[in-house]
């Protein structure tokens, strides 16, 4: 029992630390990537001076994130005279908390055997093994959707409780947009559930470590390339970033439901947005890109499609899996930032038409096709 507690405390600390680091570093990545994409240099003026010297550490503008954080913390916390002060104060947390909770079921590594990793502790652990995720739930994917659905309430709460017309419009937009895309997201993932026959994310990743069609890694994107594109689109729309940032469309609504928020409450919204980029990356990697595994890799090592294997020690496998997961998430985050700085914003009727007239029929068609294929596969081959 104590062992479980220790291991899970380590997992939770790792996950929280990872998400917060991602949230902070992504602000820098976003600035710099956008700058390099558009032939600029990017923010590079914030520095830390080593005390008693004139040595100024700039580090490519990495400290701008800290400067932002300090600014958010010491700014005046302006409160509008609203009829619902409680909802106003609670809304940022309702947005922020579910975003963190979603990561609870995402596996960030394979099977961990602490006894093999640290032989000195082998006796204490007594052969217990843990899959590297905070909560090993059979209903993993369902929990993801349950919690990501909660952020809608937060945005709408913020819009209603601000007592501001622009906020209200932003909240309404956020609500209708997120509910529409939530639907598309769920339908795209249903195809994967049909194929893998489970909603447990760890089991999904394990199934993706195999080989399909003789040589391709059995990744979700190979089975469901179409669903992968739809999922990513819907997920970016869920996150309300450009090209889907209609809820905060600053040229129309000032800042949408953020309008009346300032200081760290505003910071929480922004932080939640950046963490959600990482969460979307993690979910996409887990569902479609084989999660924490490299192609042809499993918990024992590599097994090549030709039939050969390359066994690796447990420590190497664990470290590789953790690093590969981080790398995949980082690349996917960078891809989302690329999309954000490339595409122009939709008009609001276009956003909803895109969801209901374009993505939803496609997702339904994809689901039908998958269902037919899975059904014919199962009836064709007994067992």
């Amino acid at each position, binding site marked *: 029992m104590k062992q479980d507690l220790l291991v899970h405390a380590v997992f939770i600390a790792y996950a929280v630390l990872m998400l917060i680091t991602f949230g902070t570093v992504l602000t820098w990545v976003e600035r710099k*990537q956008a700058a390099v994409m558009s032939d600029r240099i990017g923010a590079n003026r914030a520095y830390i001076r080593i005390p008693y010297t004139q040595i100024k550490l700039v580090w490519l503008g990495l400290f701008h994130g800290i400067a932002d954080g300090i600014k958010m913390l010491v700014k005046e916390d302006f409160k509008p005279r609203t009829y619902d002060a409680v909802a106003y104060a609670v809304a940022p947390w309702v947005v922020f908390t579910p975003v963190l909770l979603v990561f609870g079921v995402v596996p960030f590594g394979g099977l961990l055997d602490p006894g093999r990793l640290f032989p000195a502790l082998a006796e204490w652990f007594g052969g217990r093994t843990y899959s590297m995720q905070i909560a090993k739930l059979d209903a993993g994917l369902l929990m993801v959707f349950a919690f990501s659905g909660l952020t809608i309430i937060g945005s709408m709460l913020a819009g209603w409780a601000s007592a501001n017309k622009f906020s209200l419009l932003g909240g309404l937009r956020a609500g209708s947009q997120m509910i529409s895309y939530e639907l598309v997201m769920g339908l795209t993932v249903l195809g994967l559930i049909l194929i893998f026959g489970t909603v447990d994310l760890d089991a999904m990743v394990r199934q993706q470590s195999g080989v399909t069609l003789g040589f391709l890694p059995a990744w979700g994107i190979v089975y469901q390339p179409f669903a992968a594109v739809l999922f990513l689109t819907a997920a970016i729309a869920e996150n309300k970033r450009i090209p889907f940032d209609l809820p905060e469309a600053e040229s129309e609504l000032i800042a949408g439901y953020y309008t009346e928020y300032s200081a760290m409450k505003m910071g929480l919204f922004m932080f939640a947005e950046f963490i959600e980029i990482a969460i979307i990356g993690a979910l996409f990697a887990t569902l479609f890109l084989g999660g924490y595994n490299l192609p042809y890799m499993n918990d024992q090592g590599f097994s090549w499609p030709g039939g050969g294997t390359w066994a690796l020690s447990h420590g190497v496998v664990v470290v590789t899996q953790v690093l590969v997961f981080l790398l995949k998430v980082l690349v996917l985050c960078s891809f989302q930032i690329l999309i954000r700085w*490339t595409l122009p914003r939709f008009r609001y009727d276009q956003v909803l038409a895109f969801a209901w007239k374009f993505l939803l029929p496609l997702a339904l068609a994809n689901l039908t096709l998958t269902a037919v294929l899975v059904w014919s596969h199962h009836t064709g081959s007994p067992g």
Partner: protein
Amino acid sequence: MTPYKRKTYWNAPQMTAWERAYLPEILRGLAITSGIFLRNMGRWLTGRKGALTTYYPEETRADYAPRNRGKHVLTQRPDGKPQCIACNLCATVCPAKVIEIEAGHDPADTAHPKFPLRFEIDYSRCVFCGLCVEACPEDAIRMAKEVPGLPAEDRHQMWLTLDEMLHWQPQRDVAKPYPATAASSTTDGDRSRP
């Protein structure tokens, strides 16, 4: 009540089915931006700059025009005293009224008894028109082509003092050796800048 009919515009975009399919055109856009990103990152990693931006003030452009009117310089006589005779012509002609001169009297120096105790220019307001240089009867003030150290944290730090103008880039007035001789005072045409 007639049902709403969407207005049609003469310049409504005509899109082909390929363009209407969103994805190909989006991928084309992403290819353009990521191509620029990779090109600039390649330049960065090989030690070149991906952007044209000059990091002023750490960097200054090398292609400043040689006649660019930059920071002011006060010329010196061979003994290091300013050539300036505190006649206030520059302060008079200055359209921005940024030059402040306080004159001093030195009876020992019979050729130039009047000299500047203070000679200060407020660089937060200077328009770099160069009229002070033209007005000067003694060739005491010139403008170098560079403008180093112009940015400051507040406007009170942007006052250029006599000392700085004399010494940041010292220039001798070769046309007027001191003590003035009869020969040199007539050759006004040759004012080559060192």
